[in-house]
């Protein structure tokens, strides 16, 4: 294996943000190309319904402060979403210029406006008077920060409890740096703090902080704890397999600890798996192979991610099911696999893979990474929250079966399509619902 130091030396450059910022001229040209649709489909397609034609028009008229404010009005995490949103599936996919022309580069224009906001500290402020209400938010990921920020804008006092040492959740730890650098996610959390939100890090829910205490101290509790670790494969030698989320995390915040093999296998075919494979490839692996038991038709990563991976020189082994890690002492030297045949659709609607007995073969590898999703939160059971398909069950206002306890983000929705922007919208809608419920309760409010 490469020495850790040589990896960390090159990491910044190898995983530098993939797309450069638009130049002022490129942004102006692109902004002028926008037709300024009325009741625009891009706005409908955006889960947070940003008024996209308006923010683009404001770029065209050099009103960048107004452009950023338009984005923040609908989405406080505009800087992250500009980078990580699957725009092909959302706003840009709905652009009316898509059919005969090229859709407007909405994501990159949004980033242009958000970069301006960051450079000029042109951030939202709280205009509402303090309400005297307080809310605890569990988890400083996209959903939690969005909800906290929106509640703060409405005049409520918000405290966010975060298990990790840094806020930002997957934006900080789980998305490859070439799509979103760490400092963007951290700065976004700082912006939320600027709205008066207190973010307390290094405090784990259920260990350092308890629901019963929070219920006493706060008027509402919002659980945005995300999902768990990568699930087990249940194969021999699994202890030698690297957890994909930890692999990405090391590439972003713990470069010194990151080890990258020369011949790397990534198990899985989602966006996180592509991120893992890209990190390995960019940080010195000679060969990176993604192993997936179905085919490219069933992969859960976006089509543009698959294209990207192929351009990176990443190889694919489809219809291949890992069976055993081949070890030399404690170090992996290969992955024994079985050939797979696809049968009738399973519960997920995709063809059920069936391993062919006796078809064992070994793929050589000196590092194996798994990125096959995240386990569902164990929190629900601990707290006595009702679940739906293993996820926390909520009503239309994001309230759980316990009054005053809400849940948002990945812990109520299986991670997948557009999870970040969906989480932001959850946070926004939940904040509005909580605010409304406070108003309906109309208890006398004591303002300090």
């Amino acid at each position: 294996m490469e020495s850790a130091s040589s990896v960390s030396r090159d990491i910044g450059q190898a995983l530098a943000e993939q797309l450069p910022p638009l130049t002022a001229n490129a942004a102006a040209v692109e902004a002028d190309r926008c037709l300024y649709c009325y009741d625009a489909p891009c706005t409908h397609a955006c889960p947070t319904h940003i008024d996209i034609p308006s923010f683009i028009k404001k770029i065209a008229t050099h009103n960048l402060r107004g452009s950023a404010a338009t984005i923040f009005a609908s989405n406080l995490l505009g800087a992250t979403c500009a980078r990580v949103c699957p725009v092909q599936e959302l706003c840009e996919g709905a652009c009316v210029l898509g059919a005969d022309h090229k859709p407007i580069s909405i994501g990159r224009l949004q980033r242009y406006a958000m970069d301006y906001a960051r450079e000029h500290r042109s951030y939202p402020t709280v205009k509402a008077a303090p309400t005297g209400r307080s809310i605890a938010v569990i988890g400083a990921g996209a959903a939690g920060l969005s909800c906290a920020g929106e509640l703060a804008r409405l005049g409520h006092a918000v405290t966010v409890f975060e298990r990790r040492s840094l806020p930002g959740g997957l934006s900080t730890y789980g998305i490859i740096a070439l799509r979103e650098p760490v400092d963007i996610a951290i700065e976004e959390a700082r912006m939320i703090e600027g709205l008066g939100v207190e973010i307390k890090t290094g405090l784990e829910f259920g260990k350092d902080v308890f629901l019963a205490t929070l219920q006493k101290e706060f008027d509402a509790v919002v659980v945005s704890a995300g999902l768990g670790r990568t699930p087990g494969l249940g194969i021999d030698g699994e202890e030698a397999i690297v957890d994909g989320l930890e692999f990405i995390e090391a590439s972003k915040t713990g470069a010194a600890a990151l080890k990258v093999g020369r011949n790397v296998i990534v198990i899985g075919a989602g966006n996180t798996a592509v991120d893992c494979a890209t990190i390995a490839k960019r940080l010195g692996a000679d060969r990176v192979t993604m192993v997936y038991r179905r085919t490219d038709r069933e992969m859960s990563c976006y089509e543009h991610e698959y294209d990207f991976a192929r351009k990176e020189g990443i190889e694919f082994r489809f219809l291949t099911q890992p069976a055993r890690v081949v070890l030399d002492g404690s170090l992996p030297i290969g992955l024994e696999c079985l050939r797979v045949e696809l049968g009738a659709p399973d519960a997920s609607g995709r063809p059920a893979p069936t391993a062919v007995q006796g078809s064992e073969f070994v793929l050589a590898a000196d590092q194996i990474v798994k990125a096959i999703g995240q386990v569902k939160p164990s929190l629900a059971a601990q707290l006595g929250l009702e679940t739906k398909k293993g996820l926390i069950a909520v009503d239309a206002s994001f309230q759980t079966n316990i009054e005053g306890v809400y849940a948002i983000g990945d812990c109520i929705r299986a991670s997948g399509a557009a999870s970040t922007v969906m989480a932001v919208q959850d946070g926004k809608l939940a904040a509005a619902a909580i605010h409304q419920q406070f108003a309906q309760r109309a208890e006398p409010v004591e303002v300090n």
Partner: protein
Amino acid sequence: MADLRINFAGIKSPNPFWLASAPPTNSGAQIHKAFEAGWGGAVWKTIGAPVLNVSNRYGAWHYGRQRMLAINNVELISDRPIEINLREIAEIKRAWPDRAVIVSAMVESKPEAWRDIVRLIEDTGADGIELNYGCPHGMSERGMGAAVGQVPEYCEQITRWVMEAATIPVIMKLTPNITNIVLPARAGVAAGANALSLINTINSIVGVDLDTLELTPSIGGKGGHGGYAGPAVKPIALNMLAALGTDEIVSKSGIPISGMGGIATWQDAAQFLLLGASSLQVCTAVMHYGYRIIEDLCDGLSNWMDEKGFKTIADVSGHSLHRVSEFKDLDLSYRAVARIDADKCIKCDLCYVACNDTAHQCIDLISPQGALVEPRSYDVRSNGKRDAVETRPQPVVREEDCVGCRLCYNVCPVDDCIQMVELPSGRSEVTWSELSEKQTQVTEDWETMKAYRERVGIHIH
């Protein structure tokens, strides 16, 4: 292959395109280059009284990505010594005998000054003289240019002095900075001018710099009105051209008109010809892209003429003038409605907002299920391209309520998506003139008007 040659008041050129009197015709070297590129003629930048110029003399009006939709200038007439200009004019005419070389002139409003300049120009062998009565800035403050062009009596007087002295064709150039363009044109006819040309530049201030709060462009902290030209002024120029072509005195005189004002493409050129021009002058488009644009001006015009069966420029000239009408002679019973082609429509809804906010509220949004829906009626939790595209309503014109105003047609960004379709109105043809003559009360009294509308079936929504 169409014949592009013209004979304009005795001035011949191989095509109708002349460079207008302006910076592109400032020197012999430039015009030599222009003639090499294929220009049929050039009107030499105005010579005459001594001048000094300033920096930052050109402003411009940009719109969206389109640079220089119009230019604005405070450049004066030629600041080169007059004898150098005269020598180069002679050299150019000798080198290019088949091209039209016209010299623009502007001197003090004294008969001897004009006689002298006419003699100097004729000595060069030039084909014609253009009288610059148009310059709206600088020269007008000294009693020249637009100061003459804005007073028909002055135009007539000076043109008479020139006509007494001149033996070559004289073109009188009109300023658009006047309430009625016909009056100076008639003055030109009365004075015996051989031809007219229009339009010169329009008074304009381009803008104010929002950082410095100075005018744009700033000339040492100050600025002022300058002459406005380029594609943005074309409709103004066409209107003035048509006004001359439809004026009885001007049109009956048979005086030829050289048209200019925003010609940038062969389509513009064809439109000027159709409304009565028989020579064309170009400046701003050349200042933007260089002399090379002459190639497509000629090529495009020639191809279009072939397609339309026009053999000569004279065939085209004035061909559409009989279509120019006053409002009072328009058919009030003519009915057209907008129709949106759903297959071409990209559902930008610009027609919808334009109609509903500012016109006649007759475009509806119809959901894929056929229901009438309001804008933004989707659920707040609906998202993704599929939701957005598949549930997006279609704008549809309620034809029975459509007054055919044509606003939607104009804002639609897709070619041929919205058509103005003629429908029978069920009413017999009638003009305002006829109404006011035969049913005077209808045109003077609201109650009678109401009764008339009810009788013939005109509903105002």
